[in-house]
């Protein structure tokens, strides 16, 4: 049975999020909001970790994929859901849920396609060059969205509003669980060790038969997909989105989570996502001192725990070799 721990954990996670979701109506709206934020940040950070941590590519543009997913999913919900829901058997919990799920996945796919388009030419760049190109892509996405027509489908600088609040506990944590499962089982397999090999030494990886480009693109596209998904969830949680919410500073936030958690450590990154999201709320009471405290914590944390919160703690325990 031990072999299937991962699958069982996934199913349990799905069931638990479903259960909590039913109870969430009676939860405090603010605390629920924090919880959902945590979940969304987990998806963002775990997926970015696949790119930055496991594959060793340095992307600074995760928020762009989040934006693409957020806009994609929202536009689908705003424009097409109404037509789709009757086809699914009228407005019922099931039909609404399915339509939302389709919107999210669609958003994810849009982001994945963008990820592919950006990744193909730019992944041959190394280190900081890739970082700046992804950061550039991030800004380009924002600028393009900002310059769309205010009356058009993208809403110009004001963005989209009136997005229905479909995001529930279940959707966030179900997708977070799926994301963790996918990333962790991708990396912890013989196939997935290729990601780590590419990170450590691309030339050697190539000489060991590893198609480095394919791996990098796979990581990038998968990461983008989940970022897009998270974007969709975010849009349907906040109900309004605007381009400036997805600028490169947002990407920085996600990178901070990843590095604080420990590059390449899924568990660490999850811990960091929780910690930073909650810390952010906790620091609110400090008003103008908040960011000063936050930045100091960041600097101190890097000095005292440079290897991250939970370094090199593999998510699935490797079977001990004989």
């Amino acid at each position, binding site marked *: 049975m031990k072999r299937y721990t991962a699958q069982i954990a996934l199913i349990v996670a799905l069931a638990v999020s479903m259960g909590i979701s039913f109870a969430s109506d009676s939860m405090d709206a603010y605390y629920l909001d924090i919880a959902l934020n945590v979940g969304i940040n987990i998806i963002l950070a775990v997926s970015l970790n696949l790119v930055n941590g496991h594959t060793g590519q340095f992307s600074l543009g995760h928020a762009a994929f989040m934006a693409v997913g957020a806009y994609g999913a929202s536009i689908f919900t705003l424009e097409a859901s109404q037509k789709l829901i009757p086809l699914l058997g009228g407005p019922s919990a099931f039909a609404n849920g399915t339509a939302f799920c389709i919107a999210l996945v669609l958003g994810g796919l849009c982001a994945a396609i963008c990820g592919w388009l950006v990744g193909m030419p730019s992944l041959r760049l190394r280190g900081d060059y890739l970082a700046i190109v992804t950061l550039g892509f991030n800004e380009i996405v924002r600028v393009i969205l900002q310059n769309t027509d*205010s009356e058009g489908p993208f809403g110009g600088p004001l*963005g989209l509003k009136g997005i229905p*609040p479909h995001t529930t506990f279940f959707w966030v944590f179900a997708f977070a669980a799926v994301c963790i499962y996918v990333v962790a089982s991708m990396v912890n397999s013989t196939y997935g060790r290729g990601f780590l090999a590419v990170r450590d030494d691309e030339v050697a990886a190539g000489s060991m038969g590893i198609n480095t480009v394919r791996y990098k693109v796979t990581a990038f596209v998968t990461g983008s997909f989940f970022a897009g998904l998270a974007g969709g969830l975010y849009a349907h949680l906040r109900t*309004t989105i605007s381009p400036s*919410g997805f600028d490169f500073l947002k990407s920085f936030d996600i990178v901070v989570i990843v590095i604080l958690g420990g590059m390449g450590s899924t568990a660490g990154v999850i811990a960091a996502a929780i910690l930073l999201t909650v810390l952010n709320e906790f620091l*609110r009471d400090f*008003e103008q001192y908040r960011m000063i405290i936050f930045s100091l914590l960041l600097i101190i944390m890097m000095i005292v725990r440079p290897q991250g919160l939970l370094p090199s703690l593999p998510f699935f325990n490797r079977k001990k070799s004989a």
Partner: protein
Amino acid sequence: AVGLSSCKGKKEDENTIVIGEVASLTGGTANFGQSSHNGTQMAVDEINAAGGLLGKQISLVTEDDQSKNGEAGIVAKKLISRSKIKALLGEVSSSKSLEMAPIAQAAGVPMISPASTNAKVTEAGDYVFRICFIDPFQGTVGSIFSLSKGWKKVAILTDSKEDYSVGLSDAFRKHFSTNGGTVVAEQSYGKGDKDFKAQLTAIKGAAPDAIFASGYYNEVALIAVQARELGITVPLVGGDGWDGPSLLEVGGKAMEGCYYSNHFSNEDKSPAIQEFVKKYEAKHGTKPDAMAALGYDSAMILFDSIKRANSVEGPALRDAIAATKDYSGITGKITLDAQRNAKKPAVILTVKDGKVVYTETIAP
């Protein structure tokens, strides 16, 4: 800088009415947020000094959204569910008000935005109000004023990052070109830019009679300086986004003879306004700008409505706010229409001898 608000986390008890406020106290638009917060706080202090409302003291809980989109919604939720606020004030920026509005609406907490001028803000529902005019109106005012000056050829310079500026320019363009004017050049920039020479050179080539610069004062001041450097002498015209202390400090001589529309003029001789200006100056050391006045008015209208409703329950308070009619605020006579927007006149101000002076009032 603003002091830490002392009532943080104060829980509701039978002797206080808790009011929430969302403002950008830090980050890129902190100047607006801090001004409006100062105004709001002043209103609260005054009402408390006068014995409070319904026999209770008002407690204001302010949350900072760091000028970041995405944060305003969270803090609105926090205020509603944690601080159990009875009403919500804020935000200055429309995109943030748009995040808060559906939350306030869903929770049945009346919300008054002091200065969000985007038309869509109050569309969220019947709990969402504003006490300022809206972008289309201000853009139109700019156009009416320009036409009245006999300017037939105008260039538009928009901050394409700011929905506010885009909205003003849209309205201006529509009105101006259907009423006999020609827009001879359109240029844009992004908030935070410092160099406008390229845009201005292009505009100079079109030889306009005036430039409608719909952005905020931070950039407008630099635009004016650079325009003069390039030898452009025609006046600049803008909206209430120009209102800020550093417009003249930075713009200096370059601002001479430029015009902008605003909610109020702190030069206004009416005693109510002068008293407000005096009190504000005593407390903060600077003259109040429009954001401060609007922050003050938004709180005062809320208090007035609470008084009239004699209740802080959502529906009753909502109806009372909606019934606001001819309220004499610092920023003019305020009447809320069926769309929960304020129908107010705008004043046109001009810079003369290094001072902002009142020129005329344009009614809706």
